């Protein structure tokens, strides 16, 4: 198995607070890796460093063997890393279809003057982008289909906004998809759906996936490998069953001594 993402000795501090400490992490091609840990464990900070919002203080992030440290989010997304956000960040006042189409900017070439004149090339690319967006939206069954395409994103329910964010991330043609709590705020039925969806994202769309998730049913259902963080340190790694029973993980969640009771 070839690693698509390799993180070596990653370190990040905000002032005196060490948020991520000496972290090593590998995501192999075609793998689904879950990152778990209590609130404040540094999971989202890890995502923010991979996607280019923060620059790590130390360590290296390798995508296909090449370092992406110091790259902007735009460059990293163009290299094939897409993400969703824990707090939803869809483009609320754009239509559902436009949200997804907007994510194809980096993969398209039409210049502004070509758009202004609506040249044949611009038209062709526009049709192509539209088709691609609709294809991504179709991935979610009838949840984001039909009449919803032309609705503003703010009219969507919470769960559908999450789906839209995933569709938008898919439109950037990623190889590594990072999902920050995809099941947060969803009801049990929708949570169950998300589990199936992440499986399909790997099988049908062929992405390698890195997930932050708190819902252990989801984590159990999707993960090839689970990595547990606490206070920025990796405390356990392995199959779900092993990590779930790891004393360090139980202590991190339930407090000192909980594992031995």
């Amino acid at each position, binding site marked *: 198995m070839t690693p698509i993402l390799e993180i070596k000795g990653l370190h990040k501090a905000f002032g005196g607070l060490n948020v991520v400490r000496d972290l090593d992490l590998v995501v192999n091609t075609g793998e689904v890796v879950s990152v778990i840990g209590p609130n404040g464990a540094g999971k989202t900070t890890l995502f923010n460093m991979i996607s280019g919002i923060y620059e790590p203080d130390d360590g290296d992030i390798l995508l296909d063997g090449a370092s992406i440290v110091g790259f902007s989010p*735009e460059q990293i997304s163009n290299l094939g890393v897409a993400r969703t956000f824990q707090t939803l960040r869809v483009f609320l006042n*754009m239509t559902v279809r436009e949200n997804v189409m907007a994510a194809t900017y980096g993969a398209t070439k039409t210049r502004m003057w070509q*758009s*202004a004149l*609506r040249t044949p090339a*611009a038209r062709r690319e526009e049709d192509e982008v539209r088709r691609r967006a609709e294809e991504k939206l179709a991935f979610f069954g*009838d949840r984001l289909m039909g009449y919803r395409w032309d609705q503003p994103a703010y009219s969507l329910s919470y769960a559908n906004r999450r789906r839209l964010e995933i569709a938008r991330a898919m439109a950037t043609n990623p190889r590594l998809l990072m999902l920050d709590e995809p099941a947060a705020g969803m009801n049990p039925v929708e949570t169950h759906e998300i589990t199936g969806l992440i499986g399909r994202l790997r099988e049908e769309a062929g992405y390698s996936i890195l997930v932050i998730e708190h819902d252990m049913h989801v984590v159990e259902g999707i993960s090839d490998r689970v990595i547990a963080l606490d206070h920025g340190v990796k405390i356990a790694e392995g199959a779900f069953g092993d990590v779930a029973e790891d004393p360090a993980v139980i202590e991190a969640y339930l407090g000192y001594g909980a594992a031995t009771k």
Partner: protein
Amino acid sequence: MSHIGVDRWVEESGDRQEHHTGWTAPARRLFDKVRPGWRLAIFIALVSIYPLLVSQAGVRIGITVLVLAMLALGLNIVVGWAGLLDLGYVAFYGFGAYFYAVVSSDQLPAHWPTWVSIPVVVAATALLGALLSLPSRRLVGDYLAIMTLFFAQVFVEIVRNYSRLPGVETDITGGPNGITGVDPLSLFGFQFNTFSRNFYLLVALLALLIVSLHHINDSRTGRAWRALREDTLAAEHMTTPVNRLKMLAFAVGAAIAGLSGAIFAAVQVGVFPNNFLLVFLITVYAALILGGLGSIPGAIIGAIAVAFTPEILRSPGAAGWLFYIGVLALLLVVLKQRARLAAVIAGVVAFGYVFRMVALGIWDETILGTANDTLTGGILDGWLLILGEHQDVVTNYAFVLVIVGVLGVIVTKGWWRVAIFVPTIYLAVFVWENKLALQPSVTRQLLFGGVLMVMMAVRPQGLLGTRRVEIT
């Protein structure tokens, strides 16, 4: 899988939005029914016959409207689409105007042909726009606004005070006196030396601009602008080079402003620092916001409304019409029930007769003056009290009472509102006929401000804008 019952409410929300309600509904339905291409064709046709119907002064006003429309369209790119609050926009307009004036007058002296000067001016202004977009890389919202406001102020100060270039004898910008004797535009030997010719030139340019912007809005670039307005960080993660797009928005907006400025300078045959003050920036913003931020037809209609209204208000008769129509429109908007509307109108009529009777009973007919020669003078005789003596004092008090009444209308509901409306409207008419109709210059500003306020209260998203949602 059945769609029925999934969430009908959401499914039908579009229909609810499409189904316009209220007194503007027929107009908006009609507007929606016409396709954008035809809208433009109808607009151009109507605009093109305008100069045939009016005097030279009317054509001159038309030019003002068209220049304002172009500026509003350019500003819409930066503010409406890219969401960057640019208060330095008027500087680009001024820069274009001054640049053209300097290279087309005895100032240097240089008299560049139009086919050279216009492209150079537009390119230079775009470059300036790109340069001044640099703060927007780090600043957004209020901070960017303050920064760009500084540019606008600096431009006027430079033009006024630092007008000499090393090695050049004369004032480049002419200081406070500005530049006069600017060449008219001229293409292929055709001189744009009359108002009408410039008017049609502007119509053609505006049509081109509308089509181009309409296409750009619905393209990769337009979507990227709106995406960065909605959420810059998310846009950046979705492969959008946000800094480059901010720069592009500034540059394109500035280029349009530069072109408008150059044409303005040519039409006015001169440029003066006072043409580019903040007041004018506010006018452009008023046009854009009134029409609806983010909407192309909105920017045009806003420009027409903002530029024409003060002109209409110049004549007391027309101002009177506008006043009464405004009062009626306000009633229609505020009182949605017909019964209450009828009650208010009947109440105002009755109130007038009773008020006049009581007033004449207490004092006598000697307090009466002659009705002003406004449009409505004849109709209102016998109902309205037109004062002779003490007019100033009484109307000043009445004016204050009107404001109190308006506040009362705002804070009350239901029949209380109806009850307060009756004396307030009577007093408003009283103040209008006794005082304001006699002072058109003051009234004009007052009414214009009132029109804008009412508009924004009724439709915060502007005439043709769509309401934006910012909750998550």
